[in-house]
Structure formats: structure tokens, C-alpha cells
């Protein structure tokens, strides 16, 4: 079917998207690379010339670098784990016959429509506030001391907030996948006396692997760049400083564009490592 003519037509049709994205990637990337080799301090007279790899060395040797990397990964893995596990369970539940399925689905989807800034603000103030937050009221109702969520268990709180936002997305995709599961196969397995657990692990889970891959891929893309939630809730304090937040601090708070740009290059490298890693899995699963 792929004639020569259709091939060249295909190339022409792909061109706008590819050229635009290439520009969107290369122009800032080249500028970032350029800045990263320069001493660029806007508050001290701007660009002060070449500095070689100083920025790169300084960024990695800073005491905040490795904690930032591990925070980034903890957040990523934590949110992925919660959304996928809860998402699978919730999808299975929603797939069961029940009254008002459509209405429940609406309730479950809703958090996905909420702006990250709004959800961070609402969670921080109205739920996690140790004095007036709803969780504090709940804790006190049961006679416990209220928890200072954002300072005592900052990572857990952050993971909770982000998971709440992404759970609907995971659930939806997993639900569509489950609905396509062959009912007869399940029934046959049930007849053969397979337990609920083994039915889940040997039939449902393999069927879901593709959907799970997609959830991981899409969420990773968004989670690596997470910013608003941290900015609003902790401002990077209490060990919630991710790599992208550290770059923000270098660029905007310290006004050191060179150093921040070097950090940006590291973040790109990290993103690519994760991307290659993902592509290995996705590549296998996407055919």
C-alpha cells in the first residue's frame, strides 16, 4: 500500500508537526546550552562571559542535588504506585454491575478537571491546615492530635495531593481496558475453579499490561515536570525540592541563569534516561 507517491505525501504531511516540535525543542535547548556555559547573573550586570563547565560542576556538587534527584524519583514512583494500584482496584469495582454506574463514574473523574493550583490550594488550606483543616477536625473528633501534614509528613502529603489528581485518569484508562476483557474467558476460568486471585493475576493483569504501560508513560511525562503543587504547598521546604523545583530556585530565586541552565541540561538528561527506559517497555507493549 505504501507507494512512492504516498510516502512522499506522508513526509509532507508529517513535516509541520515535526518541524514545529524540532524548533520547540532545539531553540530553547541551544539557548539553554549556551547559557549553561556562561556566568549569567541578571542582577549583577547580566552575561559575564564563558565559564566552561563550572556551572555543571557546581550544580552537581551542591548539597541539594542528590536529595533533589531522590525526591523527584520518590514522588514519581509513589504517585505511579498509588494511582495504578488504586486505579486497577477502582476500575474492577466500577466494572461490576451496580446502580448508578454513570453517576459514580462522574464523581470519580471529577478531580482530573481541577487545576493543579486550585487543588493544591484547597488541599493545603481546607484539608491539611493543622488548625482549621478538615482533616484536623476529623483527627480531633477521634481524640487524636492534629497532624501538621505539610511539615510532618511532607512527601506523603504531596504524593496524596498529586495522586488524587491523577487517579481519575488512571482509573478511566484501566476501566476501558477492563471492559474489553473477554467475559467468557473469565467465566470459563471460574468454572474451572480458578480462585479470584489467580483469575486476577493470570487473566486480568496481563490483559491490562498495555493500559498500565500507557498510564505510566503519560503520567511520567507530567510528573517529572510537576511544579505548581510544590510551589503552592511547601515552596520546596521539608525535603520536597524536586529537580525541577531546584532549577526554579536557581533561576528565579537566586537569579543565576547559568547555574539554572546547567541544571536544566541535567533535567533533560534525566528525562531522556527515563524516556529511554520507558520506550524499552512501551516499545515492547505498543505493538
Amino acid at each position, binding site marked *: 500500500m505504501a507507494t512512492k507517491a504516498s510516502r512522499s505525501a506522508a513526509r509532507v504531511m508529517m513535516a509541520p508537526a515535526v518541524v514545529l516540535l524540532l524548533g520547540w525543542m532545539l531553540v530553547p535547548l541551544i539557548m539553554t546550552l549556551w547559557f549553561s556555559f556562561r556566568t549569567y547573573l541578571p542582577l*549583577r550586570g547580566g552575561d559575564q562571559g564563558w565559564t566552561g563547565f563550572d556551572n555543571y560542576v557546581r550544580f552537581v556538587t551542591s548539597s541539594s542535588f542528590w536529595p533533589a534527584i531522590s525526591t523527584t524519583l520518590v514522588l514519581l514512583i509513589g504517585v505511579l504506585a498509588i494511582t495504578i494500584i488504586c486505579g486497577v482496584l477502582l476500575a474492577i469495582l466500577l466494572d461490576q454491575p451496580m446502580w448508578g454506574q454513570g453517576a459514580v463514574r462522574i464523581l470519580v473523574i471529577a478531580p482530573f478537571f481541577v487545576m493543579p493550583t486550585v487543588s493544591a490550594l484547597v488541599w493545603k488550606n481546607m484539608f491539611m491546615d*493543622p488548625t482549621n483543616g478538615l482533616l484536623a477536625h476529623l483527627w480531633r473528633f477521634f481524640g487524636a492530635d492534629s497532624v*501538621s501534614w505539610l511539615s510532618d509528613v511532607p512527601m506523603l502529603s504531596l504524593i496524596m495531593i498529586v495522586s488524587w489528581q491523577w487517579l481519575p485518569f488512571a482509573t478511566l484508562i484501566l476501566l476501558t481496558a477492563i471492559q474489553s476483557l473477554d467475559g467468557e474467558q473469565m467465566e470459563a476460568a471460574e468454572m474451572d475453579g480458578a480462585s479470584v486471585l489467580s483469575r486476577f493475576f493470570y487473566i486480568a493483569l496481563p490483559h491490562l499490561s498495555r493500559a498500565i504501560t500507557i498510564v505510566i508513560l503519560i503520567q511520567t511525562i507530567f510528573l517529572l515536570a510537576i511544579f505548581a503543587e510544590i510551589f503552592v504547598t511547601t515552596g520546596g521546604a521539608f*525535603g520536597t525540592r524536586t529537580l525541577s523545583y531546584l532549577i526554579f530556585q536557581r533561576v528565579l*530565586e*537566586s537569579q543565576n541563569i547559568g547555574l539554572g541552565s546547567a541544571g536544566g541540561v541535567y533535567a533533560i538528561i534525566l528525562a531522556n534516561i527515563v524516556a529511554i527506559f520507558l520506550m524499552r517497555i512501551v516499545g515492547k507493549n505498543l505493538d
Partner: protein
Amino acid sequence: MHLRTAFCAVSALALTAGAAVAQATLTIATVNNGDMIRMQGYTDQFTAETGIGVEWVTLEENVLRSRVTTDITTKGGQFDIMTIGMYETPIWGANGWLVPLDDLSAEYDAADILPAMAGGLSHDGTLYAAPFYGESSMVMYRTDLMEKAGLEMPDAPTWEFIREAAAAMTDRDADINGICLRGKAGWGEGGAFITAMSNSFGARWFDMDWNAQFDTEAWANTLNFYKGMMDESGPAGYATNGFNENLSLFNQGKCGMWIDATVAASFVTNPDSSEVADSVGFALAPDNGLGKRSNWLWAWALAVPAGTQQEAEAKQFIEWATSKDYIELVAENEGWANVPPGARTSLYENPEYQKVPFAQMTLDSILSADPNDSTVEESPYVGIQFAAIPEFAGIATQVSQEFSAAYAGQQSVEEALEKAQAITNEAMEAAGYR
């Protein structure tokens, strides 16, 4: 009305930006503090008087800071007026990024601006930003709780007394915390408080060779005292409380004392917003007998970025917003207690304003703060709760994050100070000071 706005938006989009401006419209970036929001309500009057339109970009403090800093350093030209503080003004002025405000009209009476404020908003004797309101910090306390505890607040308390009083006022069952203080990370939040407090403990950020001083005993004393007192008598989760959080705690009657910006006095004594409005007393910020008190000096001020197309109109607005007439306008409509404080000498000479309970204490606090001589031992920087060097905001935010982690019990005070020392020296080296 919606349809009309939508239509306007559509037609504005259809025209190019330049052609759409029939008359001058100023774009003003400002912080979402109460006094600024009040001012927005009165801008119609300015437009009616002058025919100059005003577009407000109201942002939360942190967002505002990063937004205007990006714009000014890249010469983005997005704003005709920016709301900035005492920290930014001299640095930006020195870089030539702000329009000097040395040609304000005679009736504006620039000489009436409180000298402490004018000094902090100038570089080399030239005013670069006009103060909208100014503040120091002081003790606000509950007179009823103080009485109940059998104590009497002196006009100039010591830290020892504050700690004792806090412990005496604390009543966990009634949800009353003896003292509420800022612990939130950020140089302008908890960072500002602890730096101002450390001055009264004899600490300083840098020695004369720009070496970080967090390994000194004075800093250890400051932090240990702060954490000790807050663990005893502070509210739960104080490590995340900033100005706004404490204000709402105090207004709900959950704090015995609160040491913070003098501008808060008008909020805590306003019966509309405060449950304890009629039982608030004021005192100077505490000291330790070392000759320095722990109060700061700050002003939110309006500045014109260099390169704006509408310099004359922008100056006209600034003259209006920071004038004596504006103060009278607010006084007429909302009462003297609600006028923007701390900017003008004439306000404190006004007999009407002198009746306001916190007026004198505010003035005394402002007058006792000297950015040029803020530390017990000599220091190379200007500023009380900050050091007016470009690197400070970045460093102090990280340092205060370490402190907040110590308040929350994630690390010890010693660890926090060690990290603060390393962070600061690292950054000062990168900037070429050491």
C-alpha cells in the same frame, strides 16, 4: 454585561495591541495584600480624574516576585508600575532598571515621606520607589489573656519575659497558644523573622569578609530559643505558618501574642475581621539587652521600570496612590484606622490619626529600626531582616527552608545551622564574594 465584555475582548483581539489603545492604560503589578486590594477599589476615581485607565495584575507575593523579577531583568516591559519592596528597590535602582522619582510635584511633598522609608527606597540618595505603606514589627498581645495570666506587658519587653508570658498564657485545652510566630520557609516569611530576631541575639549573616556566620553561638542561641519557645507555647504546625496564617490564628483568638508586621495592627483591631478586636495591646519588639531590638523595616512601594512607554502617566498614578489625598480619601470612607500606614510623617502628626491605638507604637517601632546599623557586631551589609545584595533572596530562601525543617523536627538545630553555613558559603563563593 458579560456579553459586552466578551465582545470587547473579541474586538480587542481583532485589533493589534497598538491600535487598541485609544487612551493611556497603565498595567500595574501588585501584591494581594489588603491595602492594595482596597486601592483597586478606588482606581475608578483616578481614572475619572485623569482619564488614564488602569489594568491590575494582582498576584500572591511569591508569584509576584518571580514574575516581576523575570520581567525587569529581561527588560520585558510588561508592566508600567511594579509593586516592590525595600530589598529590590536599591538593587534595581543601582542597575538603572527603575525610573528615578526625583521630579515629583511640589504638592506631592516628597520630603514628607518618613526618612527611614525614603532611605530604604533610595540608591545613592535618589528615590526609586514611592512607599505605599511602610511597616516595622512589634508585639501584638491579648490584654485579657495577659491579665488572666497575672502579668503586665512592659512597653519594651525582653525575650525572657516574652517566653515566660507565652508559657503562662498557653492553654492547650482552650486551643490558646501563648505565642504565634512565623516559621514558614521563604526569605520574606520566616527568614525575615528569624533574621530580625537574630539581630537582638547578637548574630549577623556575614562578617566583614562576607563569611557566613551560622557557626557562631549567637545563631545557635537564636534558633534554640525560638524553637524551644515555639515547642512550648506555639501552635501546631508553626513551621508552615507565615504572616497570613498567623493573622488568621490571632483573629480567631488562638494566639496570646504575635510578633509581626505593624501593618497587622489595623486588621487585628478591626471588628469585621477579628474576634478579639477590643482586647489587643501593643509593645515594641523584644530585645536581649544587647542594644538591638528584633524589629524590621519594610515598605511596599510603587516603582516605574525604565523603558516604559508611559512614564509620565505612571508617575501620575504613583503620585495619586501615595499622596496625602489618597490617605484622606481612605480615612473618609473607611476610617482612620484603615489608611495605609507608615509612609508619611504628616500622617503621624495628624491628631485624628494619633487617636488610633496602634499609631504611636507603629511610629516608635519604625523609628527604632536602622537598616544601616542593624547588628550588634559590625556587618558589611545594609538591611535588617535581609542583606541588600542580589544573592540574598536565593540564599535566604534555602537557609530558611533548612530552619523550617528544624522547626518541624526533621533535623536538629545544629544540623540546620551546619547546612545553612554550607549553603551560604557555597553561594557567596559562586557569586565571587569570597
